[in-house]
């Protein structure tokens, strides 16, 4: 069943190509996108089941690792893939309904679909990639597609915020590519499994340099303090579905990269204390930023930064409990943060604005919208029994089990941030939903096509609670794989020093 592995990347790309040739047929484009993303979801969920029996490895083109590129679908990758596939499908359906509701059969330009599909492929590629340079390619795919999406419509505000986003992202890519070049020059390989074998052998001082360089590159993308300020300045101006998918997925790609490299390549955890400190400051500075926002999109962007800190917290503990909690938290946060931004899109439609000062009384005029906001918002604030609480509980357990002073400080900080998140959410809830609006709200209704996908995503968030047992157990096994390393490395090098590909056989017998 390894043929499933490349599908989450290659199907969206083929779909993007096809959609682009159909730029005069918006309906065909919609069908292509929906079909492709549904197939990706099916493939991802199948991989989720299969990966539980051991990582699935594909050597692209039959080039045996470490020469070619390996795609690895282990538990972590399959989990990330599945959630992101579900989320991207929901967001796509939402944006389709939004486009239909706005009557823009032509605008937001025919390029939305192909670009969105490239974004999805890029995200999938980063999860599946077993090669450091290919990871970079995945980043480039999703970044360039995101540049296009964030400036969609080309208003002055979007261009301005888009340029901050683009330039900071390119700077981080530059750091990443420098790190890749240096890694190759230090080890002679870019295959992640191969690096897992070679990096521990080289001069530890140099390995630390590489580790920190990669951390910086990924931290910019994940929005870890002090490299987080770009995010609240750039995300909120984009169209609601775009912000939703960015907030849900793009920072998580950075988190994933940190998680993967810190466990597979730099397993000694020499940056753990640095990460702990960064996690603490990210959590606090992020949520304090949210305290002073009057726009619900900006407010959520700050909570996004803050909760990135939680995930870093889990990673920095370098224990199975910590990693499992981080993985669960990532899954939770992708779902919940995306739902919230979709809901904000609905709020903007219903209330005509996202300014908390001008909104009000939505709970009375749109009770369903109120429920759709309240549930994920409470989950974000870590109120039990929602998934946000379970992730937080896992982090607290792991922090307490770690027992070091810094970990205990993080436990306290995490709890404080949880309270501040609740404070922020309650303030926003009061302003937008409970108290009366200063002016009358526009008299509109919400299109069912937009409410449906939002509700589906909120329901998915609730499912995370109900299925928390098996899901957390899966995350726990994924964390155990990460710590052990051997499932990943051994399945890439299934034949001793080479991978599954046939290229070595072909080369045998031919003169060099």
């Amino acid at each position, binding site marked *: 069943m390894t043929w499933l592995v490349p599908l989450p*990347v290659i199907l969206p790309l083929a779909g993007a190509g096809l959609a682009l040739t159909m730029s005069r047929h918006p309906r065909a484009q919609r069908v292509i996108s929906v079909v492709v993303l549904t197939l990706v979801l099916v493939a991802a969920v199948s991989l989720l089941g299969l990966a539980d029996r051991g990582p699935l490895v594909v050597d692209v083109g039959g080039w045996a690792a470490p020469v070619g590129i390996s795609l690895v679908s282990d538990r972590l990758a399959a989990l990330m893939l599945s959630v992101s596939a579900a989320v991207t499908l929901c967001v796509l359906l939402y944006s389709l309904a939004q486009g239909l509701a706005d009557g823009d059969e032509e605008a937001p330009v025919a390029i939305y679909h192909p670009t969105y599909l490239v974004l999805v492929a890029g995200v999938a590629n980063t999860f599946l990639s077993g090669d450091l340079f290919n990871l970079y390619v995945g980043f480039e*795919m999703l970044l360039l597609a995101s540049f296009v999406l964030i400036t969609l419509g080309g208003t002055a505000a979007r261009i301005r915020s888009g340029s901050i986003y683009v330039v900071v992202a390119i700077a981080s890519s530059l750091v990443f590519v420098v790190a890749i070049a240096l890694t190759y020059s230090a080890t002679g390989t870019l295959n992640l499994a191969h690096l897992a074998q070679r990096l521990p052998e080289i001069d530890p*001082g140099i*390995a630390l340099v590489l580790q920190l360089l990669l951390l910086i590159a990924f931290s910019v993308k994940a929005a870890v303090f002090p490299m987080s300020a770009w995010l609240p300045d750039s995300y909120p101006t984009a169209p609601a579905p775009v912000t939703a998918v960015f907030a849900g997925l793009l920072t998580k790609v950075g988190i994933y990269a940190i998680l993967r490299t810190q466990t597979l390549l730099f397993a000694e955890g020499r940056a753990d204390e640095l990460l702990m400190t960064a996690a603490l400051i990210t959590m606090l500075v992020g949520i304090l930023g949210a305290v002073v926002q009057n726009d619900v999109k900006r407010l959520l962007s700050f909570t996004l930064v803050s909760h990135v800190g939680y995930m870093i917290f889990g990673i920095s503990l370098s224990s199975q409990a910590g990693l499992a909690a981080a993985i669960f938290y990532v899954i939770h946060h992708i779902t919940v943060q995306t739902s919230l931004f979709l809901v904000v899109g609905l709020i903007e439609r219903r209330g005509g604005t996202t300014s908390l000062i001008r909104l009000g009384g939505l709970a009375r005029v749109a009770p369903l919208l109120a429920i759709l906001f309240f549930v994920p918002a409470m989950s974000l604030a870590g109120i039990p029994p929602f998934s946000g609480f379970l992730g937080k509980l896992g982090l607290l357990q792991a922090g*307490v089990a770690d027992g070091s002073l810094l970990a205990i400080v993080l436990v306290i900080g995490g709890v404080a941030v949880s309270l501040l998140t609740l404070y922020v959410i309650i303030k926003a809830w009061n302003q937008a939903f409970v108290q009366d609006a200063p002016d009358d709200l526009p008299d509109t209704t919400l299109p069912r096509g937009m409410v449906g996908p939002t509700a589906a995503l909120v329901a998915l968030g609730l499912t995370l609670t109900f299925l928390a047992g098996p899901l957390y157990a899966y995350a726990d096994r994924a964390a155990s794989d990460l710590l052990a390393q051997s499932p990943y490395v051994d399945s890439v090098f299934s034949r001793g020093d080479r991978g599954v590909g046939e290229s070595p056989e072909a080369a045998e017998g031919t003169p060099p």
Partner: protein
Amino acid sequence: MLCSKSTLLVLLLAHAAAALGAPTLVSWLGRRAFLVLALVPGSAAAWALGQTAAVTSGEGPTMTLSWIPALGIDLAFRLDTLSWLMVLLVGGVGALVLVYCSAYFSPASGNLGRFAAFFVGFAGAMLGLVTSDNLVQLYVFWELTTVFSYLLIGHYTTRKSSRRAATKAILVTTAGGLVMLIGIVLIGDLSGTYSITDIVAAPPTGPVAVTAVVLLLVGAASKSALVPLHFWLPAAMAAPTPVSAYLHAAAMVKAGIYLVARLAPGYAGLEAWQLMILVLGGFSLVMGGYQALRQHDLKLLLAYGTVSQLGLLAILLGAGSRATALAGLALLGAHAMFKASLFLVVGLVDAATGTRDLRNLSAIWRRLPVTAVMAALAMASMIGLPPFAGFVAKEAALESLLHGGASPAWLDIALLVAFVAGSVLTVAYGLRLWWGAFATKATIPEIEPVRVIRPPLLLLAPAALLAVGGLAVAVLPGLGDQVLSPYANTYPAGEPGHLTLWPGLTPALVISLGMLAAGVGLFAIRDRVERWQATHQGPLDADNVYRRTLRGLDLFAADLTSLFQRGSLPFYLGIVLLMVVILPGGAMALGTSLPDRISLRGGVPQLLVGALVVVATILTVRSRRRLKAVILTGITGYGTAMLFFLYGAPDLALDQVLVETITLVVFVLVLRRLPAYFSNRPLAADRWVRLGIGIAVAVTVAGFAMVVPQARLEPPVSAALPQEAVAFGGGSNVVNVILVDVRAWDTMGEISVLVAAATGIASLTFLRSRTRDSRRPRDHVPGELPVLGLGDPDPMAPLRRPGTSSGSRSQEWLRGGRTLAPQRRSVVFEVTTRMLYHTMLVFAIWLLFSGHNAPGGGFAAGLITGLALAVRYLAGGRYELAEAAPLHPGLLLGSGLFLATGSGLIPILLGGEVLQTAIFDLTVPLIGEVHLITSTFFDIGVYLVVVGLMLDVLRSLGAEIDRQGEATGHDSDLVGPALEPAPPLRDRL
């Protein structure tokens, strides 16, 4: 009857279902729906009653379901004596309050469905809380009660006071809850389980355990509104009265007391526990009573009374001896009954008269005699008059405190003092309550009789039932003794206590009578007390602290955020770069060393090229003119290409040169629409900072380049490549095999990046639809628009005989040329273009197909085709571009990407790996042997994408900008800015 184990789960689910269905039910039945809903908590109480015998004999039902084993969380339920008592209170009072609701709300009042849902949910959460046998599960229900109470307190959404009170309640109780959560996790970590039974049976010890217990007590204090975390409770009376009744009597605040009672058998011996209980409980007992004496709002008076009573409960249940615990359990039940009854009565008075201010109420007892009697019964229980439940409980408490338990003597004395003081105050404010609500006051005019509404039976019955219940329970103290002592006896210390209605003339009774007398005295001098209180404000107002904290938090957050959230791109970039210098740079400086010698293997040519690049870079940074900066950047690119070439990588060098050339062309096209000079120069100080960061980054990265390669221990993976490239990839140009085969997955990703880039450029340029306007020369109408290159319409247009040239292809070198202003045309350029164009195309195709074995490949071929198109465009203008490539770029881009991915998918269908290459040796007639490698199709895809990108760029940044320039009448010539002063374009960008 159902199996008793699963009944509890059914009950919980029934609460959930009832909560979900409540809005529908209310829309059907109106407020009568409350009567139906009352059955749900009522059935919980009934179930508990049915289990009494089993519980008393210690065989109450238990149940465990696995939920999240990885976190150690099970769903564990059990019904022991304490839980049994709580379920009775939660369910019984809940049902009665719901009945009360059915008459309390006017049929017309809005949002009843929502209210009913929250109320039943609240009751369900409480039921779950008091039956949980797992600390985390308990916390889950604990927070659920917080959320539901938030929603209920904020029921009157349009009232600011209501919203504020709700916010205060959720923030304070969640803060306490989170502190408690840390305690829970600490305890769980120490004992390896969250099972309450196991933890209490074998409580972990040591400083960490003590910390954990203290944290748990903080949580309990916040929930049970113990001083100093009490201030949310009086504010919460903004809720509808039935909510207050439930909140104060059976739910929410009782959760904290419940937790104290739950943990006391394990931890009451700890000194920290005793101190906490004394301080929290004692202060609440006295402060609450003192504050109750000064309130004028009857609900506020009761609210402070609750604070006081909760303090007393905490003391009794936390003190640790069996006798006090028994008294505490009895008081827990008594309090639930009289407090709920009193709230309901106050709600009744409020509903009947329209006010709760005791300064406006007079002689109400005459209007509402039955109500007044019920209030008197409940009040009697509260102040401990015999023969009421309150009296029984207090006598037992006093008895046990006088005898002392196993706790240290100082604790007993301190607790006794607090108890006596609190009881005196309770008597005083209890009398004041009744007097305030019902008595005839000389100074206050009676309310008009007509305005007093006679309460319906449904409103009166619940209060009456609860008030009479206080009497009924008291006459059967032996029964209470029997059912409650099993739990009290789980406390580790002291003699078992007893509940009796008439203890005889004991010292305790004497003290009780003394307390009563003192209380009556205090009530008698209420005017003086009030005056004294008015002049003596408490030193510390917790509510004030809360408000100031929030304001301070907002201010601090604003300051902190403005520090980092500058909105400045240079600032954000500077931070990223500084991090590179500080972190990996620092690690390099501290943990590595430079190599002994650095070889200059490239020799003089490399040094020269390097110097060129460095000089060009410095000049770029210093240049003020955009065009100059672009050209200088191009030089650095060509220099890099040269370095590739010097290292023996002709493929890379070729690609790099082509990319540089195209980048230059694109830049120049864009620059037409930008001011000639960079706008604002930064301040001098900023420039120095930026220079400093730049140099630091440069030095750091150069350091990396020198230091890092020393680490290499093993040969690179590329060693195996040449051999496998030929044998498996079928090509002798390894670079190309890498691009289209070995790392085709990378290439596939990168061409999708190109596609995204192309679509992005198009989306920004053609803001609405990209399919519009690719007109060819034959569509051109001379004189229609201002001519390219000049600001005015072409005055010569009529002279240029538009009709004659059409169809006579041979007369022109480029057909698009005639659309250009004569001044802009260059015959030499047109002729050269005409001659070179097809040659370039042929060369591109050759590169495409020869690439597998010689330098070239789809990428380079695409770039050359793109350059050919660029030449056509530059020579003949936008109509010429449309003539050269009438295709839509999206079609090229899309089909290219589709072809490349398709060539990856097909091998999967044939059972191979994704993107696997097959080699066929075919004999084609006339051509002969053909060495067909399937990766060629992939390369053609790459080619198409690159051509599509180039066409897209030319159409967007070239032709479309031309068109926009024409349409808006602005100059859009290549050399425009140089020929005349730049028009103020900047403000349009």
